[in-house]
């Protein structure tokens, strides 16, 4: 007889799926929103319970989806890392929807708002399934659910730009999932398994056979590249800025905070549970990911410096931040993976905070999206200003904020003994340069939004009314909560990193 809490991952997935399906019958946007928020809260509680149980007992468990165990049926597997990330995802989606609510109501026609929330529900379901899955093909199916839902929340704003961004996103995503699935099929042809626990010994056995290193390198490369395309790693990031920059605020926040991370978690699970990190490193795939990650850190920041459109600037900064994650993964050590997971959590809170705050600032500036017109906007919407300041400073790497800890942990992981020297130097240089560039584009914006203008004016000389825009309680709560989490992550870094490291050891 299994413990009752072990059912929770399965409950979460189906709770999200069913609330999405039932939302079809709710034609009213407000009710659909209530259903989605309630679902996310429930799922957060359930996942949090799993996290507490597993991390206190320091265990993980598998859950057969049906009467048939490992190599025959589907399985879920939950441990501290998976359940923690799922809890984070729920909370981030909850805050994003709360903070972006006003923009949502304006950007999406009332009769289609319930469809938007259906997409959000299924997005949540797919993220849970991606984190908990123990099976490569289930991973593929839920990747596809994730893709279609993510594309739909981009296009929900329904203007020419977003539809164009969506189709580019869709095509790149399908290329990614196609390459990933081809890799999985090759793995199946060689090993005859799809479940991670059965794949692990099979792959280890293949490693003893020297002649099979080449196909293993190609297929693991294909799986990594497929997931990298979907999580916008450097040369494949072209779809990201337009998609994240033009979508409605809540969508941008969810996309950059959560959706990109879902694929990376699957990648981490593949790295740790199908292969071992050392194997990935010895196949050369790790170095490729490392180099691309380092390039992304610089390239994304450089483009963010050149950008004048507020949301697109933040989107380019996402490209750089995804680079940090891949830099950590590319080190192919447990410490590197721990750093990557910490960065996933930190970025999952910081970037939505920035997007939501920017959304608030843009609303307070008469919907002008250029950075220039945001001058003094923080005084018109103080909560948004504070949120942007905290988020921006965290990205720059101010001590006691989450971003600083990421850089620190990543640097420590790169300085370990077993890391080759070129990787050590590259990693440190990339972190340093990228932090400088971050400071270069975030600090001026932070200063500008706090600069008190006697009479703030828009492009046609119209004067903004200081008190016209009331951001609302849910916006303030969302920004405040996310800011607090960012600060807490920075202050309580050490126990949290240790928690993750213990979880990684259990993966």
């Amino acid at each position, binding site marked *: *007889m*299994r413990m009752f809490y072990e*059912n929770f991952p*399965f409950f979460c997935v*189906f709770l999200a*799926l*069913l609330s*999405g*399906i*039932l939302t*079809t*019958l709710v034609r009213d946007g407000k009710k659909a929103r209530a259903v989605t928020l309630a679902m996310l809260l429930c799922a957060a509680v359930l996942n949090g319970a799993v996290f507490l149980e597993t991390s206190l007992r320091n265990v993980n468990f598998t859950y*057969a*989806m*049906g*009467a*048939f165990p490992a*190599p*025959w*049926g*589907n399985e879920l597997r939950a441990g501290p890392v998976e359940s923690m990330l799922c809890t984070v995802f729920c909370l981030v989606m909850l805050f994003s929807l709360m903070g972006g609510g006003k923009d949502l109501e304006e950007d999406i*026609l009332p*009769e*289609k708002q319930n*469809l*938007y929330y*259906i*997409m959000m529900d*299924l997005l949540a*379901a797919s993220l849970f*399934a991606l984190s908990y899955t123990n099976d490569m*093909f*289930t991973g593929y*199916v*839920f990747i*596809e*659910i994730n893709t*279609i*839902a993510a*594309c*739909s929340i981009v*296009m*929900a704003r*329904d*203007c020419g730009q977003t*539809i164009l961004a969506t189709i580019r996103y869709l095509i790149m995503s399908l290329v990614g999932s196609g390459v990933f699935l*081809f890799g999985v099929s*090759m793995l*199946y*042809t*060689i*090993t*005859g*398994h799809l479940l991670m626990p*059965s794949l692990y010994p*099979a792959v280890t056995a293949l490693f003893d056979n020297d002649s099979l290193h*080449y*196909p293993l390198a*190609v*297929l693991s490369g294909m799986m990594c590249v497929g997931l990298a395309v979907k999580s916008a790693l450097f040369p494949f990031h072209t779809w990201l800025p337009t998609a994240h920059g033009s979508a409605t605020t809540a969508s941008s926040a969810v996309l950059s905070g959560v959706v990109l991370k879902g694929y990376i978690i699957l990648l981490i699970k593949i790295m740790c549970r199908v292969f071992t990190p050392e194997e990935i490193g010895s196949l050369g795939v790790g170095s490729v990911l490392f180099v691309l990650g380092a390039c992304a850190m610089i390239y994304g920041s450089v483009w963010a410096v050149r950008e004048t459109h507020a949301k697109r600037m933040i989107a380019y900064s996402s490209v750089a931040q995804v680079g940090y994650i891949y830099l950590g993964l590319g080190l192919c050590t447990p410490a590197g993976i721990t750093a990557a997971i910490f960065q996933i959590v930190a970025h999952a809170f910081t970037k939505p905070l920035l997007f939501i705050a920017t959304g608030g600032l843009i609303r307070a500036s008469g919907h002008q999206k250029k950075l220039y017109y945001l001058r003094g906007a923080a005084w018109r919407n103080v909560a948004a200003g504070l949120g942007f300041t905290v988020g921006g400073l965290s990205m720059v790497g101010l001590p006691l904020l989450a971003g600083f800890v990421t850089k620190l942990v990543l640097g420590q992981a790169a300085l370990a003994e077993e890391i080759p020297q070129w990787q050590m130097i590259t990693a440190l240089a990339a972190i340093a340069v990228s932090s400088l560039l971050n400071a270069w584009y975030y600090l001026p914006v932070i200063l500008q939004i706090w600069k008190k203008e006697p009479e703030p004016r828009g492009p046609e000389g119209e004067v903004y009314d200081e008190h016209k825009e009331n951001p609302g309680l849910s916006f303030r709560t969302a920004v405040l909560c996310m800011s607090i989490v960012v600060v807490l992550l920075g202050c309580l870094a050490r126990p949290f990193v240790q928690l993750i490291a213990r979880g990684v050891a259990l993966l």
Partner: protein
Amino acid sequence: MKKPLWYEKLERWVEGDSPALPEPLAHVENPEPVKEEEAPVQHGPSLLRSAGGTAMNRLTTAFGILCCAIFALLMLTTVAYLPRFGDADNAPENETSRRYIEQGLEEVGATNLVTNIILVYRGFDTYGESCVLFLGATAVIMLLEADRKNTSQKDRLALRRSDALDEEERNQILGHITTVLMPVIFLYGLYILCNGHLSPGGGFAGGSILGGALILCENAFGARRVQSFFNHKVYHIIKVGALILYAVLICYTIYVGANGLPNLIPLGTPGSILSAGIILPINVAVGLEVACTMYAFYTYFGRGDL
């Protein structure tokens, strides 16, 4: 080269201007001036940009195709390392497939072993897949359902006119043939649907055949006739009902199986129509959902409404 007649007809249908159709806007009172029809012509500096753009594009395309070729070579050499096609001792022929084949009938109860796998052994995957279909339909509705952003007054009037014309000039031959064929097609679809556990087919194939039959119905008898029994409400009820039924069945199986409780759904005699436990109801549910979705795709693409 002369095009064959059927091709020309198809071409004309696709183009949407059968000779009988008058100019759709000729005598419709239309307050808005027609301005969207202008061809997008580039002038001035943008022309220069476009020229530069295409040269740049050519370069990137050439580079990209080179990358693709390298990728193809990599994959081809990998294929050379793969085990020989059709061998009996290849890796996929392991204990997994052995159990599916040798115990599938006894454990799950369907003689079609593929159905056993997709609906019971790997039922979670397949539920995810029907959710993809559900999401696809939702996304298409989100994009194409006529609203004030994507449909102008002019579009709506043109649509109404062409509907009225269709109503007047219904193709007699198609109507008669459809009347004869419709029961047969429905029967065939239902057979494939309900016999999914005994013969090839199942919910997805059967459902698409049923959906195709609905599409044919609409073409032959007009949208209004189909709408009389298949409107928004029916569509939503069937779709949501089918998915919920499916979810309940699959959740029950998963919960019971995972917690080691006894499964109360009987498996029946293998080979008979009422056998294989949850497979038959799931197939019916999937079939209904697929049929609804396919028909919804059709109508939203054509009319922007159900």
